[in-house]
């Protein structure tokens, strides 16, 4: 029962149906859009390759383990469940790696455990900040991003704190 399985066909039906109703040359319009998609993908390719190289070198060096060990005492002091920490650190940097971590957490601590639920909520209610900033700004050639990264990371931290509180109250 994947909800996306119903939503997607429905959206396509509405768009094409409304187009025909408004007497738009739907096929031609679709082709024009596809051409735009092609050029746009080629435009973002340099950004993607640059980001994957730098993020992967960073992740594969295992430096995050050092960061997590460094943060551990602080989080123990704050009574923050340290099982969540790897996910919290990785979530803003890499979407696919944080999914793997989520899967590990669900397998190790149980899907219906407190930790498992908090991890699911964190993964589901925020997006990969670094990737989005890099991709969206890179695609239009923005170099000075002002306070973007700061807001993005602060929002991520607040998301983790809220997830802990909300799951604590609701379960």
């Amino acid at each position: 029962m994947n909800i996306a399985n119903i939503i997607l066909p429905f959206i396509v039906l509405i768009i094409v149906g409304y187009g025909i109703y408004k007497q738009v040359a739907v096929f031609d319009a679709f082709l024009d859009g596809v051409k735009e998609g092609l050029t746009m993908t080629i435009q973002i390719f340099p950004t993607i390759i640059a980001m994957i190289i730098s993020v992967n070198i960073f992740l594969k060096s295992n430096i995050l383990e050092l960061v997590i060990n460094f943060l551990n005492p602080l989080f123990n002091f704050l009574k923050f469940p340290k099982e969540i920490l790897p996910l919290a650190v990785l979530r803003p940097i890499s979407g696919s790696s944080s999914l793997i971590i989520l899967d590990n957490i669900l397998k190790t601590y149980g899907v219906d455990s407190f930790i498992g639920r908090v991890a699911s909520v964190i993964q589901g209610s925020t997006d990969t900040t670094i990737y989005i900033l890099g991709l969206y700004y890179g695609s239009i050639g923005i170099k000075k991003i002002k306070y973007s990264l700061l807001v993005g990371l602060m929002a991520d931290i607040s998301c983790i704190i809220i997830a802990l509180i909300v799951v604590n109250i609701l379960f």
Partner: protein
Amino acid sequence: MVNYIWAFFIITGIVYAFFTGKTDVINSEIISSASTSINMILTILPIMCLWLGLMNIAKESGLLKIMSNNISPIVKKLFPEIPKDHEALGLISSNIIMNMLGLGNAATPFGLKAMKSMQELNKNKDVASRSMITFLVINTASVTIIPTTVISFRVINGATNPTDILLSSIITTILSCLIGLILDRLLYLLWRRNYEYR
């Protein structure tokens, strides 16, 4: 700043690997990264083409305008710098709707087009505009009503009720997005005071 962030990831990664004696891992990673990005482009390409094709139909039939007019009260408040009838508002709305439905892949093409459209309004092409930052806050703090990927992972791992996290997830996503938007406003005001009216 983008330059520094990019270099930061590479330099700290390589230096740390050097000290921990894991340079061979990094060596193979540098080589495989290039092919990983080709794979990524190949997964993105059909999605971009499909959704921009559909969106073009929606644009020509006026559906995009109807949609942006309907969520406009909120979106217009959030983006005071975008003129009322500008295409960017419709694209931003579509991106938000796709994210809400948990269709992150479909949200990206709309998001990229929205950025392009906001760049046309941007006076200084090198510097992020206020609207762009607000838009990215909405995207990174993404309001996701149905987190489809997470639910499927919970199904695979045998949850008794995979969707029991929905309420917590909805509350969290809305609250964190609100906090993000408040922070965005505050930082915008601070930034303007400190850097733009010297």
